[in-house]
């Protein structure tokens, strides 16, 4: 298969790019140094690429049309319709497609067509020099958390955590209002609107107000980046996490990982998004709810915490700006998160 032969032949390149120690933060440590890419204007170009799973043109049509209706031009990357088993092309093809979009000065935002698995296989092959000099929005979630976290750790450049092309409905007339609203939120985020969200209060929320840079993503992906040069820096930040298809014991273990890698002790606030818990006969008697699992890890801390925030592998998954300062305000009656 193609991927294997590529890996064999790229051994030298991998070795050359390999850094044994974690890099120093370039910006990540100081929230005032986070940089937001420029907002998009009418006529700006958005590139669509698939850094992880395989996707065909037909599945991105709805997204292309919708983004064109927002006044943007679209460039479809070479990875769309490319396939290497589960991947949208070989590692080399996926890296090359994303690299071209990172380097093309005409492209102002890069929309990842879908998640799946595969970003971590190419993240070290990418050259970020041009992107760092001229940042642009990288958009996506789930597996794309690899890029959000990598940008957070290394460059302090903001990115957009949101739905991707495969979540745009084919038939808008039957789409639920929340589905439409969450997709429209991508356009709001891209156009530079200051974002504001609310969540339905959960009785187990911990009230409070927190100002900080928003960071986060898919919990399993964050765990798999621990100890690497893409490891997320949460100190002084508002952290959001979401996950799907994991057993409760596994979610518990991942929160222990966050705690034991020091990611929960210095937070300004914690946002728990959607968690679709997998159930089987072994794990359905875990004896603790998601709220128990989270709250017991942060008993010693005093920052605000909310549950059921509309982010995750679900219909109400709003565009969130990672690396941008927000205010989280949790009261018994309301939860708001707004860009400040």
């Amino acid at each position, binding site marked *: *298969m193609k*991927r*294997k032969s590529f*890996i*064999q032949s790229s*051994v030298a390149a*991998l*070795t050359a790019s*390999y850094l*044994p*120690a974690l890099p120093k933060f370039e910006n990540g440590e100081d929230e005032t140094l986070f940089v937001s890419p420029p907002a998009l204007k009418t006529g700006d170009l958005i590139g669509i690429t698939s850094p992880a*799973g*395989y996707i065909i043109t037909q599945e991105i049509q709805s997204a292309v049309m919708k983004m064109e209706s927002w006044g943007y031009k679209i460039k479809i990357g070479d990875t769309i319709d490319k396939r*290497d*088993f*589960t*991947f949208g092309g070989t590692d080399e093809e996926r890296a090359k497609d994303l690299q071209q979009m990172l380097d093309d000065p005409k492209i102002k935002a890069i929309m990842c067509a879908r998640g799946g*698995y595969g970003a*971590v*296989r190419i993240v*070290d092959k990418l050259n970020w020099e041009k992107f760092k000099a001229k940042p642009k929005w990288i958009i996506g979630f789930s597996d794309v958390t690899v890029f959000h976290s990598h940008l957070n750790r290394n460059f302090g450049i903001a990115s957009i955590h949101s739905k991707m092309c495969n979540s745009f409905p084919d038939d808008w007339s039957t789409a639920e209002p929340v589905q439409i609203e969450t997709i429209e939120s991508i356009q709001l985020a891209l156009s530079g609107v200051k974002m504001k969200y609310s969540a339905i209060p959960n009785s187990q929320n911990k009230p409070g107000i927190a100002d900080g840079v928003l960071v986060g993503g898919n919990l399993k992906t964050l*765990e*798999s*980046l*621990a*100890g*690497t*040069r*893409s*490891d997320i820096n949460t100190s002084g930040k508002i952290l959001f996490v979401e996950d799907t298809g994991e057993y409760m*014991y596994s979610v*518990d*273990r*991942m929160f*222990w*990982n966050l705690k*034991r*890698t020091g990611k929960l002790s210095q937070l300004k606030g914690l946002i728990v998004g959607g968690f679709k818990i997998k159930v089987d006969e*072994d*794990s359905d*008697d*875990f*004896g*603790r709810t998601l709220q128990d699992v989270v709250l017991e890890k942060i008993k010693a801390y005093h920052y605000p915490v909310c549950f059921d925030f509309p982010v995750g592998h679900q219909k109400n998954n709003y565009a969130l700006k990672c690396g941008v300062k927000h205010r989280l305000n949790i009261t018994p009656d309301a939860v708001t998160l707004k860009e400040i």
Partner: protein
Amino acid sequence: MIKTPPYLKKGDTIGLVCPAGFMPVERVSECIRVMNEDWGFTTKVGTTVGRQYHYFSGTDEERTEDFQNMLDDDNVKAILCARGGYGISRIIDKIDFTRFKENAKWIIGFSDVTVLHSHIYRNYNISTLHATMANAFNEDGFKNEYVQSLRHALEGKKIKYQVKQHEFNRKGEGIGELVGGNLALLAHLVGTDSDLKTKGRILFIEDVGEYLYNIDRMMYQLKRSGKLDKLAGLIVGGFTDMKDTERPFGQTVHEIIRDAVAEYDYPVCFDFPVSHEKENYALKIGVGYKLKVGKNKVTLEE
């Protein structure tokens, strides 16, 4: 310098505990019988054996207390974790190793017990025993060479294993302290106070029931956290009941692991009998071993 706990003599006491998942007492009784009657040891059965709190063998406090008592009881010369499951990550930071450091004893188990192995090796430099647990004794399992290898290890017999060649093996010889365990747990521990040290060491890994893409992701994590580049050797144990996604991953688990270490030149062997199946030789973590991967056979000896 690694500290090796004293080996066991006839009549010495082995403590049995369940630090993670619940285990019915009748699944442990054969293990107790064999250790008492056939192996000539004495057993002390902990309060968590047969106890149940939902999924677990007791609350976190109960499991911690039971394990702590065994650690601090000078008469107990080894602690066998009766089963794995999930749960040691919840109590590892509650355990006080002060007395254990002065009075080291063998900690035995695998799977979730990888947390203890990795934690003790990293922080206290004391050798532990990666080996079968109570369930392996059942249905005449105690007669097989894998369960017997636990007895030999406890008695201090120098271990030399010889296994068959595999087509993906990379020939060579490596000498170093042996470290490793369950891949999912090793990945989970990266960046924590229990993180595995691998530099200059022989690493072994095994796993069960994982998706292929997840194995790939975990190998990337080990690689990107610098755990694979300076090994003395790599031992790939059983990777059984692997699952695949609807869109096939496109590589076997052996290919995934082979490719993850393709750029290095230390010896690598596949299908070593360390696994969640019957084939699970006792391995002393932290002890110096020599791994020889030859054309026709693989040997691992102390």
